[in-house]
Every structure is written in C-alpha cells, then in structure tokens.
C-alpha cells in the first residue's frame, strides 16, 4: 500500500507541526488552558453591552447583586461539574437544595406557626441541614455505586421523592420564622460583601486547586476519561466516586441554606427547576456530558455568563412575563457562543 504509507508519513509530520504551533509561550500555556478562557471574551462583551444598555450595570451594587443571586445556583453548578467530570450525573441536587434546609426548618420552627415541630433548638439547624445533605449523598452513592443502578434514573427518582418529602412535611406551604443561625449565611456581610459571595468564590477557588493540582482531583478526570485505565493506574475508583457524589449533595445542602437565609424562608418549591439551568451552565462552561473533560473555572464562567445576560435583560426593561422564554433562549445562545469560541463539538 504505497499510497497510504506516503499519506501517513505526511500526516505524522503535520501532527508534529501542529503540536508545536498550538503550544504558546514556549509550551507553558497549552491549548487546553486557553480553552478554559473561551468564555472570557463573551463575558467582557456582555459587560460592555450591559454598560451601554444601562450605566447602572457596572456599578458595584449591581455586580454584587448579580454575584449574590447566582451564588446558590453556582454551588449546584460546582457540585454538578465534579459529578459530570467523573461521568455520572445527579439530578436530585435541586431537591436536596430544598429538602435539607426544609427538614431543619421543620424541626426547628416552633409548633403552631405553620407546620413546624419545634423539637430542637435553632442552633442545630445548620448541622441538621448538612447532615440531611450528607445522608442524601450516601443514599445516592449506595444505589449508584454499591448496587450499580443507572445514575440518571436513580437521581431522577430521588428528585421526585425528595421534593415529595418536602411537600409532605411542609404541607405544601412555606416555613417562616427561621432561627437566626439559618439566616446568617444568607444575610451576613463580610468585608463589605455578602457572605454567600465569599463562600461561593472561596469554594470555587478550592475546587480549582483540588481538581487541577492534586492527585485526587486528577483522578476525577481519569475516571471520567477511561475508568478501566484509571483502575489500572491504581486509583481506587469507587472511593473517589463516593466522595464526589456525597460532596455534591453536601454542596447542594449548603446552597439551600444560603438561599433560605437570603429569602428568610423555605418554600416547598425551593430549588424546583434549577437543575436545567445548572446543566446548561456546566455545558456552556465546557463540561462534557461524556465525562473527563472541562474545568471548574470554565463552569464558573458558564454560570456567570448566564446570570450577567439575565441581569442585562432586566436592566433593559424586558417585561417579567417574557423572562422565562428569554431564559431558555439565553441558554441556547450561550451554548452557541461557547461552541463558536470553544471550537469543539459538544457532547
């Protein structure tokens, strides 16, 4: 096969050439790193458009407002990102976000006011919330990892069950009169910025470091990319999956706590429908639904882009009735933008 031989030799040569070309700055910044920054130009462009539409946009108050409203959902995005990287998915995060603070409120809110039981002191509400998140994560892990059930269906079932439990204990109503400990994270200000923003940014920073610069973090990518190869490299894959899924549920419980604090209530529909935006933000941010690909920074820019666009629309005076339709449209447009700037087919 002389012709294929020649073709292959030249292909190898061009491969080598391309490898040289895409590595900028003496190979210190590989193309993969640049792809993480793919959404940055889009974010800058939206900032400029926003500023033109309404000069309020770039003022500190407005930016803090954007960051605070997105902080809860951003934690869900962070959780989903880790779970997607190991090639699993967790739909139940949105229900966890409602049920975890819901159970705490149910046990803490004094009887007589709504459906509260008033069984435990208010100071225990945060530990209870996190414990519920932990328990949900453990149940998901047992079903998915221990019993080998399909993760999509397991978490879809959990989504419905958990939502139903919250509706049951709350009687379909909203818990008010939350203890001050539950309000703290959603209302406190640290160094001039709401605590929820600090928490959100800090957790993202930690996750960026863990996933990029620790053996544990890299094992997430290895598992998502090729689980057999990861096992062969000596990674204890089941243990990593357990940690990831349980951490995801814990993050969702924390997000729920922050949202309840900010709204000073736990509605029975808290978090309802969030999961679709969460998936959209992750995919826009370059996380592959097939696992093993994408970075935490990318996911952060994905959710930031979505919320900035929404804010610009609000400032532009778009009627509230149209926001729903536009939200869906934004997701499609943002996906298209990231396809163009990222350059790769999304899976």
């Amino acid at each position: 096969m002389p012709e294929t031989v020649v073709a292959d030799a030249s292909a190898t040569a061009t491969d080598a050439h391309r490898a040289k070309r895409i590595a900028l700055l003496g190979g210190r910044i590989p193309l993969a790193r640049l792809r993480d920054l793919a959404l940055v130009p889009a974010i800058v462009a939206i900032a400029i458009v926003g500023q033109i539409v309404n000069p309020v946009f770039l003022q500190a108050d407005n930016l803090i407002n954007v960051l605070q409203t997105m902080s809860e959902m951003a934690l869900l995005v962070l959780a989903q990102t880790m779970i997607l990287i190991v090639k699993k998915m967790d739909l139940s995060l949105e229900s966890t976000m409602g049920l975890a603070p819901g159970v705490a409120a149910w046990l803490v809110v004094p009887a007589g006011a709504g459906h509260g039981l008033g069984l435990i002191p208010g100071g225990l509400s945060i530990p209870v919330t996190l414990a519920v998140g932990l328990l949900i994560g453990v149940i998901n892990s047992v079903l998915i990892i221990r019993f080998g059930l399909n993760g999509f269906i397991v978490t879809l079932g959990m989504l419905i069950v958990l939502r139903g439990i919250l509706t049951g204990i709350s009687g379909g109503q909203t818990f008010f009169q939350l203890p001050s400990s539950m309000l703290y994270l959603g209302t406190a200000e640290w160094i001039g910025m709401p605590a929820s923003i600090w928490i959100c940014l800090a957790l993202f920073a930690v996750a960026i470091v863990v996933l990029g610069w620790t053996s544990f973090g890299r094992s997430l990518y290895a598992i998502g990319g090729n689980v057999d190869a990861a096992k062969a490299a000596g990674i204890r894959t089941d243990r990593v999956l357990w940690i990831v899924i349980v951490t995801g549920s814990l993050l969702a419980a924390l997000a729920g706590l922050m949202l309840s604090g900010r709204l000073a209530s736990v509605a029975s529909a808290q978090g309802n429908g969030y999961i679709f935006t969460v998936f959209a933000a992750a995919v826009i941010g370059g996380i592959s639904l097939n696992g093993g690909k994408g970075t935490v920074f990318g996911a952060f820019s994905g959710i930031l882009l979505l919320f900035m666009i929404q804010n610009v629309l609000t400032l532009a005076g778009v009627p509230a009735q149209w926001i729903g339709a536009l939200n869906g449209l934004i997701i499609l447009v943002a996906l298209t933008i990231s396809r163009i700037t990222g350059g790769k087919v999304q899976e």
Partner: protein
Amino acid sequence: MKDGERTANPVPAPADHGRASTGLPIVEATRIVKRFGPTVALNGARITIRAGETHALVGRNGAGKSTLVSVLTGLQSPDEGKVTFGGSPAPRLADRDAWRQRVACVYQKSTIIPTLTVAENLFLNRHDHGPSRLISWTGVRRRAQELLSTWSVDVDPQTPAGDLNVEQRQFVEIARALSFGARFIILDEPTAQLDGAAINRLFDRIRDLQRQGVTFLFISHHLQEVYEICDMVTVFRDARHIVTAPVAGLPRTELVAAMTGEAAADRRQERPSSLDSTAPPALSVRALGSDGDYGDVTFRVGAGEIVGLAGAAASGRTEVAETVVGLRAASTGNIEIAGRRPRPGSVPAALAAGAGFVPQDRHHQGFVPDMSIADNATLSVPKRLGQGGFLNRGRRDRLAEGMIRNLAIKTPGPELPVSGLSGGNQQKVVMARALADDPRLLVLINPTAGVDVRSKEFLLGKVEETAQSGTGVLIASDELDDLRMCDRVLVMFQGRVTNEIARGWHDHDLVAAMEGMDLNA
C-alpha cells in the same frame, strides 16, 4: 507519592546483551490450566521466555493466546500451574505495583485516557508534588519529557492523548511500561492497525529496545512478521503448547502445520458444484474500494455458486461483505446484485435487490434478544405479514413455524424470546431471516462463530441446499470449516484480494495465504 520518584530515571541496561541470550528465564509459566465454565482455555500450557529475546506466540483464534496473556500479566490467576519471574514466584494478584514492575502489556485496546495530556497519562496517580503538596505540573512535564527522550519517543508531552495516532499511542504505552521498571513487555497484535511504514518504525523501535535489554513477547497473526523480528516462537493450538523453537530453525511449512495440526484433513466429501453458468451472476463487484479498509476488489459470484472470502481479522473481508449488503458504502466501484444495482450504503435497497444476510455478530446486529422467534425471523419481510403496514399475527406465526421446521430450531413455539435459545439455535433464527425472502444472493459473515458442532454442520448443510436452489452464496470467514465447501476461496490480505484458491486446498495453503506468507518463498 514516593513511588513516583523511584522511577524518575529509567536506566537502560548495558547494550551487550546478545540476542537470544541464555540464563535464567525472565518469565516461565508451567502446566497452566485455566477453565471458564465448561470451556478449557488453557490445558497444561507452558512458555519459557529468556531475557533479551523477542519471543513470538502464535496460534489460531481460540488457541489460548489471550488467556495466557492475562495469566502472565496477573489479570487472572490460573486454576493450576505456576508463573515465575526470574526464578521467583509471581506476586499476589492484588499487588498491582509488583506486577507492573515485572511485566507490561500493550493491548490492542488503548489503556490511555484520551482527555488527558500525554504527560499526565504517563504519571497518572504518581504525579510530581511540589513543596506545597500540590502537583507540580512543570515537574510532571519535565519528567515526561525525560522519559520520552530516554526511550526516544518523539511525542510532545503536552499533546492531549486523544490526538495521538495508533503508532504514537503504542510508543507512549511502551514508555509508560518501562517507567514502572518492567523490562518484559507483551505486545498484543501491535501491527493489526498499522500500515507498512508504521510497522517498520515499530520494528526498529523493538530492535532498539531489545539492544537495551528489553524482552518482548510478540503476538501476531502475521507469520511474516514473526520471521522478521522474533528469535523464538511458541505455537499454541487448542489450548495446548505445541512447539517452541528458534525461528531460524523452523521452516514456514512446519510452523503453519503446527498451527493447523496435521490431523485436520478434508472432513467433508466432495460436493458437486451447483454453479449455473447460464443464469446471470448473483453478485458482481467491480473495483470496490474504501479508504483505509480495502481497495480494488473485483469478483463475481455465479448463481448457485459458493464463494469464500477468507482473510485475517483486519484483512478487510468483513468490510467488503458488509459493503455488499449495504451496511457500509464504498468510496469507489460498484456492486450489482442479481443484475440490479442497489443504492450504495442502503440495507433495504440491497435486500430489495435480492440479498439475504447473516451479520458478523449476531448479538449486535443479528437479532433483538427479547423479541420472539417469530418477530425476529420475519423482521425483514414485513410486507409478507399483512397489508397496509398492519401485521397479521396468524400469518406471521405460520411463516415462522415453517422456518422453525425448515431449520430445525429447537423451541417449544414461535413465541419464545430469542434470548432463551442456545447459541446454535439463535444463529439458525438469524439464518432463517436471511432466507425468509428466498434471496438470490446469500451473504454470510462468520456464520458459525460461537455455534456448537452439530448446529454448525446443519447450518453449513443448509447453505449448500440453498446454493443448489440457484442462490449465489458469499461466505466471509476465517474459519476453515466454513470455507471447505466453497467452490473457490478468495483470500484477502491487508485490504487486497491476493489469492484465489480452487476447491481441494490443503489447510496450510489457505492459512499461509491468510497470514500473508508465501510457502514457496
């Protein structure tokens, strides 16, 4: 991660190792028995590999080669017998690190992670850590660069591993194996997906590493390559060790004889040819080509003629047969079935032109396991089941009962799901469907794979019967028993038809042709 530091600088052994040096064997397996249920995959097999040699392991499909590899690499423990490395017994199965220091295998299936860079793949789970306990990516990159240049692998460690071609991937996997300290490497059909120039580069690399003291076990279906690169050869047949000999002292004819076994004489008596040369040919293929798979394939199958299409696994025989029935589209050339030219790449068009088809893998393409025999057997002939898209269950069951009788399918009735049948009877259902529309051309790919002996005889008898009724038959297979009744056998090698062998061939002629070897050379 102390184990990462240990392997930082692989030191090549002194180059004065002669080829086929004597001394303690680097690996020795004795009296290995391995059973999977009722199947005996290895039956008292043995192999001895001495340090510094390149040892070939050959045998036909099912000879036990892959089972031996998984025993030698510690993926499975033998039921009986023992494996020693350099005289000391093999480590426990769970001690992966110990196995990795002794032996590595480059499988046909990749064990790298496509989404990570080459550097990270090399040092996965044993990254360099900086003073802050975080991964030092510069350290990982530097170490990967060192490793790759020590073994002169010309790959940028920053490339995503998914961008590598097969050849580069193999080199990276070899380098990774060496970085664990293993100096014994098993190459499982490394040339199957490579073209000629890449094979030569691989062989140069093997010779280089051999001079640096690396021992190879080389598994290949291409005997020519064994003669080119190996010092010793071991032949397995039917789960047993047949012979181990220096390659130089073993004539090709004897090697092939060892692989096939002399006892395999013509078992079937001669069958009168049913070729009807007056009728138009059932199939004529002209200058068929598809990039990378096969090229310049021209042949015809007369009405009532049985033609075999033989060849090794990657020879292109399966691809040609799948192109004929429309599962693939060729880039050049054309196909005529019973005088009509179906639209390329369309299975319905090929079926409408008069083709019947038994696909390569019945589990993937042959049947829907949870549907009944009746539904499966009549899947390709919906228009005979009723009018206007509605199907008449009574008519379907009558049709299926006819097929069950005709092919002697062992079942209580047509409503049984196909998944409840034995392998042989499942294949009969697939065959029944291929014959459901009285085809002018019957195309069979590996028709007796995984089928018991009696069903095999029956199926092949059915094929002869079909040919006698004037249907042309094309059998793409590497199973000698399938090919024995063919009027003639076309042999494919690396995408080209290289030989045409008339009936009455000897096993070793056909095997040699399939392995791309000329016995008279």
